[in-house]
């Protein structure tokens, strides 16, 4: 027995691991699954289907309205939702996810009631004992936890601990779990290849069942807890007797791994599906006479047989869910079909097309970050190419079914900007991670001139940091970022210029404090923001626009990492870190003799015109200007740069450089050798 934190997680471990900020670029309402569907549940009273997607969303479908069945999304997970069970007569739903949490939902209204963070790794499977309203969860951390549903649904923010009992003994990651309705037997299937059986009432180990030669991903227990059905990646289905502790029957009908099983209460008809994309119906009385019910286009992940045994919902690695007719109709057609017609190799499925299909959306399968490190080009499962603006978290343009590589070449400009974010496609949607330093990507590394980024500014040549702008925009609704009153005034002055119009426009749709976020843009308020350990657990998820709420504020205080606080609360401007080292030499044609070899360094975003100024001022006119004082200098500045631009020409590898180009671009595209110092030659234009 262990005490665990319920609704709120314990903040003690936040400090230990690196924490990153992520966000998802998506539509406000995502009506269709964006990726594979991992699990299904059906509410026969309301005729609702619940589907758990790898896009992190659980969707509710109204089966009475097959034309427009989408009802609602249940969004709170941040990674694949692996399994769901409907309990309390359809009132509550429990979900298990690869974000390591188990969540309790109000199924009717579709909101998340609490989050259980007891598991230490992906939670892969749930089991439900209806008579006792007990749920078990298990996953890759090898642990099985038993939960009392009544307790879970009574959790509140203040009463947030729950007692659980755990079943130990598994040596390997658990991929499947099953419990009978009275809750007398629980069985787990794992990569250990054995089934382990416990009595959930006492926590006692009952037995191990050996026989499978690969992972077990599908399990069923009959009502009285005497028989177990298991489907394994070794391609077999086994029927076990718990009383005899032995395998009664092995069904070899699938050519590949069996991933999904359904059956009626008495195990007299077994539906199986798996990697070979086929659904077979087998009666254990005649195990050799399996019937091919239907053939899907993708490997089958999960099936759900409606309680009246009339329909079978099938979920696959595609995003669509199909409903196939079953039962009496199956038996019928089987008896009518003559065995001679059966072609052993290519049997014809009983049904060529499903009763109805819940349409799925496309998932993004590949991406390319463009050179400007701001735009990302993606291609989805339907070959649609889309251009996204990461900085503003929006879709820029749907390009249709065009050639990805060509489009990438067309859009890529010869500029070089350091990488500052990483892209993740695990949900089929664009998830962007920002981290202090992850895989050598530092989210504060990219400085660009505001002009290049398309932001108007009167202050002349202003540089902006992409990471800083984005972080500020992500947390702009969080009151803690609003800043103190003096700050506002101060900043307000600076602000009364070109960006004024944009600012007021922004304020019209968000009730933010007068000075928060960045002065250039806001993000769509429906953007999910995720605070998580790098490659680890999710600490908190909220929508960008909800950060103003009280609870949200408390949780943000607990979870936002210090490196982000520095930027969004303390308004610390990040320091440019990337330098370019270069050597300035007179060009051979210039006729200038200079003994000294100048090895210089500058921030990587410095433009060539600045170097021209430097050459003009420090190299060519050195000494002559030593007398001028500061104010004069300021006035001369603009003149100087235009004079310098006119008079001085810089070359790299014999190529004349554009004054607007920055040093890192020269280094990458013209010099082309990252390990050696860049060499620039100057000459005077006549």
């Amino acid at each position: 027995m262990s005490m665990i934190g319920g609704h709120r997680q314990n903040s003690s471990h936040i400090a230990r691991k690196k924490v990153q900020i992520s966000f998802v670029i998506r539509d406000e309402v995502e009506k269709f699954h964006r990726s594979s569907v991992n699990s299904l549940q059906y509410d026969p009273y309301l005729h609702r289907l619940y589907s758990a997607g790898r896009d992190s969303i659980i969707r509710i479908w109204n089966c009475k309205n097959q034309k427009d069945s989408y009802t609602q999304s249940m969004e709170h997970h941040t990674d694949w939702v692996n399994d769901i069970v409907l309990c309390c007569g359809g009132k509550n739903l429990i979900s298990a996810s690869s974000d390591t949490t188990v969540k309790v939902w109000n199924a009717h209204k579709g909101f998340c009631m609490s989050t259980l963070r007891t598991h230490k790794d992906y939670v892969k499977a749930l089991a439900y004992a209806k008579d006792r309203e007990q749920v078990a969860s298990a996953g890759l951390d090898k642990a099985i936890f038993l939960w009392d549903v009544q307790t879970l649904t009574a959790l509140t923010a203040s009463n947030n601990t729950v007692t659980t009992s755990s079943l130990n003994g598994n040596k390997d990651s658990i991929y499947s779990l099953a419990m009978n309705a009275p809750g007398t037997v629980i069985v787990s299937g794992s990569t250990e290849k054995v089934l382990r059986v416990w009595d959930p009432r006492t926590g006692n180990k009952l037995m191990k069942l050996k026989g499978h030669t690969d992972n077990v991903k599908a399990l069923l227990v009959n009502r009285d807890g005497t028989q177990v059905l298991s489907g394994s990646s070794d391609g077999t289905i086994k029927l076990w007797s718990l009383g005899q502790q032995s395998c009664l029957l092995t069904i070899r009908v699938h050519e590949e791994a069996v991933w999904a099983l359904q059956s009626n209460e008495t195990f007299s008809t077994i539906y199986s599906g798996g990697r070979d994309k086929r659904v077979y119906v087998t009666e254990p009385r005649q195990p050799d006479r399996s019937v091919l019910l239907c053939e899907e286009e993708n490997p089958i992940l999960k099936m759900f047989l409606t309680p009246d045994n009339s329909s079978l919902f099938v979920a696959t690695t595609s995003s669509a869910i199909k409903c196939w007719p079953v039962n009496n109709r199956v038996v019928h057609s089987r008896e009518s079909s003559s065995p001679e017609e059966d072609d052993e190799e290519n049997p014809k499925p009983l049904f060529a097309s499903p009763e109805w299909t819940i349409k799925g959306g496309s998932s993004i399968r590949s991406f390319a970050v463009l050179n400007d490190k701001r735009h990302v080009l993606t291609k989805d499962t339907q070959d649609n190419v889309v251009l996204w603006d990461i900085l503003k978290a929006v879709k820029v343009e749907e390009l249709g079914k065009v050639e990805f590589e060509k489009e990438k070449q067309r859009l890529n400009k010869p500029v070089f900007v350091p990488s500052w974010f990483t892209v993740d496609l695990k949900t089929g949607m664009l998830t962007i991670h920002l981290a202090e330093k992850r895989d050598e990507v530092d989210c504060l590394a990219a400085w660009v001139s505001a002009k290049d980024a398309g932001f108007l500014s009167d202050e002349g040549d202003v540089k902006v940091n992409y990471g800083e702008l984005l972080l500020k925009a992500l947390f702009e609704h969080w009151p803690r970022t609003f800043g103190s009153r003096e700050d506002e005034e101060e900043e307000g002055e600076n602000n009364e210029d070109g960006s004024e119009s944009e600012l007021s426009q922004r304020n019209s749709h968000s009730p933010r404090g007068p000075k928060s976020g960045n002065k250039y843009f806001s993000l769509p308020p429906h953007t999910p923001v995720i605070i998580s350990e790098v490659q680890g657990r999710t600490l908190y998820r909220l929508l960008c626009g909800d950060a103003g709420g009280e609870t949200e504020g408390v949780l943000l205080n607990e979870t936002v990492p210090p490196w982000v606080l520095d930027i969004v609360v303390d308004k610390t401007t990040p320091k440019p870190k990337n330098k370019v080292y270069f050597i300035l030499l007179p060009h051979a044609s210039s006729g200038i003799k200079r003994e000294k070899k100048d090895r210089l360094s500058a921030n990587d975003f410095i433009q060539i015109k600045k170097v021209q100024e430097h050459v003009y001022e420090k190299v060519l006119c050195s000494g002559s200007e030593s007398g001028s004082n500061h104010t004069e200098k300021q006035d001369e500045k603009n003149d100087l740069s235009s004079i310098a631009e006119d008079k001085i020409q810089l070359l790299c590898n014999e190529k004349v450089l554009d004054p607007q180009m920055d040093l890192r671009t020269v280094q990458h595209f013209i010099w082309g050798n990252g390990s050696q110092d860049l060499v620039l030659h100057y000459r005077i234009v006549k």
Partner: protein
Amino acid sequence: MAAIDKTASNSIRMKSSRLSLKAQKNLSDISPAPVPRSSHRIRSSSAEFDEKVKTNSASKRGQAGSPTVSQLNQSQSNVVEHKEEIHYSLFNGFNSSGRVHGICPLANLGNTCFLNSVLYALRFLPGFVHDLHHMYSYLQISSNQNVTSSLSQRMNFLSELHNVFTLLKNEECNISEGKKIPALHPLQFLESLRSVNPQFEGNKQQDAHELLHCLLDQLFNLPQDYVKNENSIEESLKPPKSKKRKRNMKILKDLNSPKIFDIVGSKFVGQMSLETRCVECEQINRREENFLEVCVPVKTKSDLDDDEELSDTDILLTALCTEEGLVGSNKYWCDFCHHHNEAERSVHYRQLPRNLLIHVKRFSSYSRTFATKCCDAMPAPFQLPCFCYECLHQDKEHKKGQNGFKFENAEHEEDLSASHLPYFLTAFVCHLGATISSGHYISFVYVNSRSLSSCLEKQLETEENISKNNFECSFLRCCSSHLDRLLSSGICNGKDGFSVPIPSEGVWLECDDDKIKVVSFAEDT
């Protein structure tokens, strides 16, 4: 060669140790393969033997020589191990007794036990010195002045290595009864080693494992680089003149059709495929690689499932074919799922080399600076069945067959069985001491009188009894170790003057720098 380098460095990176090395084969009698297949093996290896005499293509494993059953079953293994396990598998069975006086020992030149232990192991690796001799003499004949300095340095390395074996043999030949052979100082070899690889400079402690790799790499690359060099020279000096030159050309052509010269590539390099299967989508990602050695983790009985009784061989096999789960924080990035998932990583051996190097990973480094040695005993069986993918797979098929599945591979098996002979342990190098940077190396070698393999140079088989052989391969006169004489003249006397009976099947020697002792089986443990 790139592949080899890679394998080697990977294995080191893999976190464990670098120390000890190898052992190898023996020729004699340990009996053939498991029952159901032994008859196939013998038959097909004889067939192969016959062919070999005609074609030059040479068998991968069967020993030519007089085709006795025992010889045909020989294949060889270098088992690289660490010392602790030796304590277990050997010291339980052997007692060390007197010094051996018939073998010329190598003197320690100051922290050179790493060098001596590897030289001992290679010297008694059946066939190695012989192959080296031919490689050396061919390159010697064809050498000319036009080599680059680095190449000549490496040629010098080869020649010094050869020289060590020649000197050892000379010493052994000149021995007068009862006299002790003075230890040889392999100073020149050490210097040539340092010139090709500066890593070994200074009188520091060195890693025997790295030395072995360096040595084999040199031997692997040298002939190829040599050919390259020759070809480029040939282009520059168009008309070849002398007869000798022509002869050289012919030899060099032979070089291209390797075997004789590619003594490392043809005998030490195997092929494996690394498979990673995502547990989620069950897609398999396969990568083929060449390997020079197999790195195995230390496995003991206690690591394995308790329910079954496992032999030493089974345990080693488990270690060799270990399946690794990528789990926890070490999950696998599945390109297909776009997700970090658990995965199973397994190794299959497509082709095993004639000489197998096994590196037991006893050192695990938790950080760069700190390494710990695992001192659990690891079983080291004297004989190891072929564990290539095919053999293991057939076993499985066979089992399935008993369950009612079809078993169709019998014919196939017969064709290939010659290359699936078992390995015999012939030498191992042990590291004594607790840390990676200190300690001592000794090697244990297996010696018997029939350690001569067929000579491909003249395509003549030499008889196992050297003295009766009329068509002597030049190797015999040059650097072959006179082991028959050593053993038959009973030189293995202990200090006390009692004589150690020489087992007819050969003998294990413990070589600790200039001290060479016979290891004998104790009656009981």
